[in-house]
């Protein structure tokens, strides 16, 4: 509450130091007058379809008043009071039969409705709610229901006391008042809440071809549904559901407002499906129609917003999880480098020292010792190079380089020994890939090249990388013996691991090969999007 008050109150007035009796500023006066005028206008709209003189079938001022006090603070109550005073003053002039006392009671009931409604709304759903959660829509219904029950009860008692209505019709009068205020509030309050929060964003979303089509469809289908005498009353609902799915709460509240406004207008014009009913039923069915048309898409859009949010959160959580896994591998690599690699290096040094000591002693009987030392030397060096490969791949710098240079380096170190000529072609710089994708592509390429060295019997191989804004294609081709991809059992040649890596980065993976015709492994990975383009 304090936030809205802070923005609404001019700081100068606070500093003046005369809190209670200070004259209202020009700004406050203007605000009160604007609120009063808008409240009065909303009441006039509601009075176009009235059940009796003082109770309307739909009462929009209730929702408007609650929205204003919810958004800007309870301190703006004088605007509501003034607006309500105008409404009752006009009633007094036009219907001289209504006693002043009853109108005073009505005024008090409506004030209590707006103030209790706004206060409850703050308590239940917090400030600045965008109605994009089902719990917020639920809280709003509780606040509106409580508020309108107060107004309907106080109003009915006032009218009974002034003999405006008979005790026998009090029950129906109360129900009509309650449903009228509730229907009005359920249309107007969400409309104000969703459009005042971020009007530019709501407007941008609706200002599309689809948005125009939606509004036109809602208007057309409501017109057809309500004014036609045929049983097609609910034909607007698909359009309201469309609004919920595609345009979120702002689209829903606007569509509902159009449907409610047109329904009231058409019925007040003495035509259409609701007007044809007897007067008692007419009011009730109009009220229920508006209530259902407001509640259904509101809940739907809130649930859809929740689902969209959790989908985004899920993606984000997965990304973070992957980052963490990579970070963990990097940590392990660092630690292995710090401990095992250094020990292996030392071990090589010690072995060499022992070999030299043996040479200088030059004993024939130590031939076995010499051989053992040679074996130790070989094993340690092998462990050293495996450790180095691991650290290079998972170390603090990921693959340690951009993809093409990394492949060049790897090809020159691993293929030289195998007598295989590897050509690496591709753009040398940074590719539009996330670190995760880059790292998986590198691993796939390495695995494929290892297969070429181990199984293909090829003399040349070619690693080719093509990058566009949309995707990055990695191709490993060789001129070796090839194989029949159909006959390879799952898991053989590490094909399974390559496939699962490709799946993890949403890449297409394919192997083209036949006996005697070489092999082409191809991975088509989506590029990292440099800017998120909305939808």
């Amino acid at each position, binding site marked *: 509450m304090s936030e809205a008050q802070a923005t609404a109150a001019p700081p100068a007035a606070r500093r003046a130091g005369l809190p209670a009796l200070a004259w209202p500023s020009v700004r406050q006066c203007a605000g009160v007058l604007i609120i009063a005028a808008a409240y009065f206008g909303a009441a006039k709209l509601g009075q176009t379809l009235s059940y009796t003189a003082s109770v309307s079938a739909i009462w929009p001022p209730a929702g408007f008043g609650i929205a204003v006090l919810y958004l800007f603070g309870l301190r703006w109550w004088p605007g509501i009071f003034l607006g309500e005073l105008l409404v009752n003053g006009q009633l007094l002039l036009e219907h001289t039969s209504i006693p002043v006392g009853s109108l005073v009671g009505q005024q008090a009931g409506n004030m209590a409705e707006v103030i209790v409604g706004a206060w409850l709304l703050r308590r239940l759903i917090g400030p600045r709610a965008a109605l994009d959660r089902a719990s917020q829509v639920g809280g709003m219904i509780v606040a509106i229901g409580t508020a309108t029950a107060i107004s309907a009860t106080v109003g009915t008692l006032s009218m009974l006391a002034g003999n405006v209505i008979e005790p026998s019709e009090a029950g129906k009068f109360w129900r009509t008042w309650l449903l009228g205020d509730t229907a009005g509030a359920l249309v107007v309050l969400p409309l104000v809440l969703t459009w005042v929060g971020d009007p530019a964003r709501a407007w941008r979303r609706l200002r599309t071809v689809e948005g125009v089509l939606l509004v036109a469809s809602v208007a057309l289908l409501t017109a057809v549904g309500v004014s036609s005498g045929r049983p097609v009353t609910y034909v607007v609902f698909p359009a309201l559901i469309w609004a919920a799915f595609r345009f979120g709460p702002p689209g829903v509240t606007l569509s509902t407002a159009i449907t409610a406004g047109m329904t009231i207008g058409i019925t007040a014009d003495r035509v259409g499906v609701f007007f044809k009913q007897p007067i008692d039923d007419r009011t009730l069915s109009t009220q229920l129609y508006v209530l259902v048309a407001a509640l259904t898409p509101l809940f739907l859009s809130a649930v859809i917003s929740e689902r969209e949010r959790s989908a985004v959160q899920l993606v984000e959580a997965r990304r973070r999880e992957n980052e963490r896994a990579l970070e963990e591998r990097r940590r392990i690599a660092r630690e292995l*480098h710090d401990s095992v690699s250094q*020990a292996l*290096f*030392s071990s090589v040094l010690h072995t*060499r020292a022992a070999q*030299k000591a043996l040479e200088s002693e030059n004993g024939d009987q130590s031939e076995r010792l010499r051989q053992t030392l040679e074996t130790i030397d070989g094993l340690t060096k092998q462990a050293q*190079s495996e450790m180095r490969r691991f650290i290079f791949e998972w170390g603090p710098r990921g693959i340690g380089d951009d993809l093409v240079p990394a492949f060049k380096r790897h090809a020159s170190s691993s293929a030289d020994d195998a007598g295989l000529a590897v050509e690496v072609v591709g753009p040398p710089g940074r590719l539009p890939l996330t670190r995760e994708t880059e790292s998986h592509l590198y691993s796939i390429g390495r695995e494929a090249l290892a297969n070429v060295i181990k199984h293909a019997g090829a003399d040349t191989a070619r690693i080719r990388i093509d990058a566009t804004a949309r995707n990055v294609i990695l191709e490993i081709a060789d001129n070796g013996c090839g194989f029949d991809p159909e006959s390879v059992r799952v898991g053989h040649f590490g094909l399974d691991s390559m496939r699962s890596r490709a799946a993890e980065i949403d890449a297409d993976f394919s192997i083209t090969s036949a006996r005697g015709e070489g092999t082409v492994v191809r991975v088509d990975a989506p590029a990292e999007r440099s800017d998120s383009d909305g939808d």
Partner: protein
Amino acid sequence: MATEADETIRVVVVDDHAVVRRGLFAFFEGEPDIDVVGDAQDAHEALEQLARLDAEGRRPHVVLMDLQMEPVDGIESTRQIRALYDDVEVVALTSFDEEERVHAALEAGASGYLLKDADVDEIAIAVRAAHRGELQLDPAVARRLTESLRAAPVSDDAAALTSRELDVLRLLGGGHPNKTIASELGITERTARTHVSKILAKLGLSSRTQAALWAVREGIADAQR
């Protein structure tokens, strides 16, 4: 204290892993011409050791330097040592062969760059080479530097060089430091340095290592090893 040819080479080992320092001690036991006179686990201790040995009149000839250390890395430590003792050669001994590290180490004044997973006998060879004032690179490192040189846009007109600059380049290609180049050509070390920077500018190169490799490739170098 004039350096005699048959004098043993005094070496200080700087590495933050005790296990590596112990390994190097054991390894150099088997090299009669090399004597490890001290070891340090970081840059600060290295300077302390050098100061102590210098005061004892046993200033080391070569420092074997691990590049990955905390809080001061081996490259900065190399720079500090070379600034204080310009006749102490530093040989980098590391696990990583990223190009920029090699450049940084050489620019800091290292006269050798070795990888911990290369053949360990290279270490003794490099220490002796550094002691002779020559440059010793790990074969893999040298190959990659050459490749990057090949990729660099080099204007191949050695004709743009003066005959004096060609002399300097010939010695540079042989791995000689400025001091040797200067005494060889009868010029001051400062003049030698000026010639080197002019050569780099004319050939569009960024380091003396690149110039040396360029000279080797063009057949200008004094083939020495």
